[in-house]
């Protein structure tokens, strides 16, 4: 039985490992089904849209004077001539058992997990994903720390000092943050801090080569990305906190003579964090799949930049790979959030 007045987003039990395990397995199974559906949809889009639009993907991979035989050969090589269900099945099988590609005397074996080869660069997709993933993960996590700390703090302060100068100015800044797109704030920060004041170099350096260089290169992207999200988090925090402060149990806590610090920090914050956590799960999951605008503005070689190039080049295998990572990270992040609810908000726990 669920206690508490609000309906909990997901029931989680603490202290009963079996039930927790069953719940996790159920969720993971659902996630796997979801991924399969997503792969089917992406294949469907790639198969159907060119047909409707009357365009030919294979033709864009041959030279200026393409004779029909060469186009046909390329279509064969890319596997685009097979029926769509065979293409999708080949892809599934490749993930678990690997695949062998043989065209025109060129035999290539791609061992499991095989996500295929880029149409454009002929690289295997899996190493491209694993190579670019850490860049995106670093960007997303670093920015998340910033926007959580500053966004939530600003929201709480605004809620506590409602109508004050602080509240008003914080909310104006937040509004600006929400409404200014990354390619504006990104270019502005580059122009000001990288080229004008020369505070940061703002060029990506792999962590392995120089941790300091990596940190220096990531500061502007982190701040720029966090600015957008912190603004949203500040507004949500403020609204939720004000609602929570009006609740009976807060009045009770105050009436009991608890210190204001405890009332806010221990009682009000827990309820406030629930919607923040929900948002964080989705935002972080989506960002891990590639912060397309941030990465292309700051030339960060992450998944978002890869997928943008892939879309330009009609490079289906790379697009599929990134879509899968995005979906998987959204699903996992949401699962993690559901588990965390129980930690933060006791009302969510089963009795």
């Amino acid at each position, binding site marked *: 039985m669920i206690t508490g007045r609000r309906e909990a987003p997901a029931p989680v039990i603490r202290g009963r490992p079996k039930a927790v395990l069953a719940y996790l397995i159920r969720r993971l199974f659902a996630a796997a089904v979801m991924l399969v559906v997503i792969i089917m949809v992406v294949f469907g889009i790639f198969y159907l849209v060119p047909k409707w639009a009357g365009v030919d993907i294979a033709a864009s991979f041959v030279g200026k004077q393409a004779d029909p035989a060469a186009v046909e050969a390329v279509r064969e090589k890319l596997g685009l001539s097979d029926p769509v269900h065979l293409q999708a099945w080949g892809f599934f099988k490749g993930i678990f058992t690997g695949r062998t590609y043989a065209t025109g005397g060129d035999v290539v074996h791609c061992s499991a997990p095989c996500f295929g080869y880029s149409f454009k660069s*002929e690289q295997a997709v899996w190493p491209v994903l694993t190579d670019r993933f850490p860049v995106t993960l670093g960007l997303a996590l670093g920015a998340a720390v910033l926007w959580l700390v500053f966004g939530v703090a600003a929201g709480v302060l605004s809620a506590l000092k409602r109508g004050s100068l602080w509240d008003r100015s914080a909310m104006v800044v937040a509004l600006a943050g929400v409404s200014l797109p990354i390619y504006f704030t990104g270019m502005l920060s580059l122009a000001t801090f990288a080229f004008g004041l020369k505070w940061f170099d703002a060029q990506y350096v792999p962590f392995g080569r120089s941790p300091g260089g990596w940190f220096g290169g990531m500061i502007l992207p982190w701040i720029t990305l966090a600015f957008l999200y912190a603004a949203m988090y500040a507004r949500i925090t403020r609204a939720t906190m004000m609602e929570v402060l009006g609740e009976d149990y807060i009045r009770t806590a105050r009436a009991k003579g608890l210190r204001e610090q405890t009332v806010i920090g221990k009682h009000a914050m827990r309820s406030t964090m629930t919607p923040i956590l929900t948002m964080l799960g989705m935002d972080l999951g989506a960002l891990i799949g590639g912060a397309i605008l941030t990465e292309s503005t700051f030339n960060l070689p992450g998944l978002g930049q890869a997928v943008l190039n892939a879309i330009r080049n009609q490079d289906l295998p790379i697009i599929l790979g990134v879509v899968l990572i995005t979906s998987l990270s959204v699903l996992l992040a949401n699962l993690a959030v559901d588990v965390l609810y129980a930690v933060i908000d006791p009302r969510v726990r089963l009795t």
Partner: protein
Amino acid sequence: MTTQRASARRKQALAAAAVVAGLLTTAACGGGSDSTSEAGYDAANNKVVNAAATKGGTLKFAGAQDGDSWDTTRSYYGFAWNFMRYYSRQLVTYKTEPGRAGAGLQPDLATDLGKVTDGGRTYTFTLRAGSTWEDGRPITAKDVKYGIERQWAQDVLSGGPVYLKDILDPDGAYPGPYQDESADKLGLKAIETPDDTTIVFRLPQPNSDFPQMLAMPSASPVRQDKDTKSKYGLHPFSSGPYKFESYEPGKSLELVRNTQWKEASDPVRKAYPDTVAVTFFSNANDLDQRLIAGDYDLDLSQTGLSPQGRQTALKQHKGNLDNPVSGYVRYAAFPQNVKPFDNEHCRKAVIHGADHVSLQTARGGPVAGGDIGTNMLPGSIPGNEGQKYDPYAIAGADKSGNIAKAKEELAACGKPNGFDTTIAVRNNKPVEVATAQSLQASLKKIGINAQIDQYDGAQTSGIVGSPANVEKKGYGIVIDGWAADFPSVQGFGRPLWDGKYVLESANNNYALIKDPAIDELFDAYAKELDEGTKARMATQINHKVMEGGYYLPFTYEKYLNWRSGRLTNVYMTDAYNGYDFVNLGLKPSK
């Protein structure tokens, strides 16, 4: 997949873009002074800037896009061909000289430009001694043959030019080296390798531009035991002074010295820097700012600065800029299968009615857009007459359009009150759309109502490249541009003007020119070995094309290109319409 909440903010975005443009032009003041050049504006256009023979340093390229492929067989990008000379050699290659001289050929792996016998059907080359692969083994005639044979494997190695394949094996009899039954995979009959230093080409029909086709990277040697087929472009095996150290597609590329390369074996390459590094950018504005700041030496793609970078650079670093032609002629073609463009008078009405100055302005003006185009043969092609040949007074008396003359032509066409038509233009470049709008506005004045249809630029071959589709959609005016694959009227104009080159898809003869006189001239040109006569034929072909009124040329395109003050031996070459990469050097660092 969209991950950031940036939708539905178009208004802010527009305002934002304007503010950013303003800020960017002011914020990047006083960029690194060490990169400033004393050579002056346009100094490397037609002459060498900072001639020096200093070795060492890292030459830093910045690229807004990766090469289509670094496999010598598979690339069709001009900048990639230019770059490939670092790690590949050919029998013959372009002279390392500025301007027009740079489009001439000189021996590279071969000892001379080849002995031509049998009325232009046989070319015999002898290989120079001492040329080696990056593992020290000598480059043999068989390696050259195998490298050329790879062009036949279009099913695995698509994307590059196939001139040699079409000329040596017009019927497509050879299946390519990967499906070659012979033990050594060298089954192509048209190329013979009697010994390791001799290679003989036997052409079924003579083609006087054959040496030009041998100068393309797609004629580079490839060693059979190092051929990784579809993966070759990820790490080509070097025959030149540099070899691949690392390559991460879309991120970076680094070449280091090939220690096995000997300068004495190579009459072309000087190999000044120790390292050649390329960094790829996804933000072109950022790339320009970093060039101006001195973080990088030059732009890999050689397509010029973007509008914002242009403004900053022109104001503050004019001496670092060159303003060369891009090799492209920008034009409108009139497909004859769309009425009333089957009538030459209707075509000429459009040519006379267009405001050529406003078209030039739409393309960026005289500096960033280029000079007004008066005929179809660009300046780097032998036989061109430049703006001197101007049969429609496009850059002369009628440069703002001649409405009276246009109306005369309309009357002669039987459409005195004008007509309706459609302009087809690619949607991925704002300047193309601006050109279409400019043309639309001037045609309105002579009663021609033109709709603009923007199509997906990545799908050119199936949209405007399909005459059936052009007819169905009623594209009376197709806006496009063209540059030569090699500097000759054949390399530039044959796909555009020869009736035999009209194709069902990927057609480039948009106007559907089927003029026996032009076709005969091309055939005669291919058989003619005398360069002077060839140039005169090129002039004649150009005249025939212009007289038919099949095209309205807009501009001989130009761009503004950044040259770091660190660079030595900098010059523009007509061979690649960009800086000649292979012999760039660096000033010693202080």
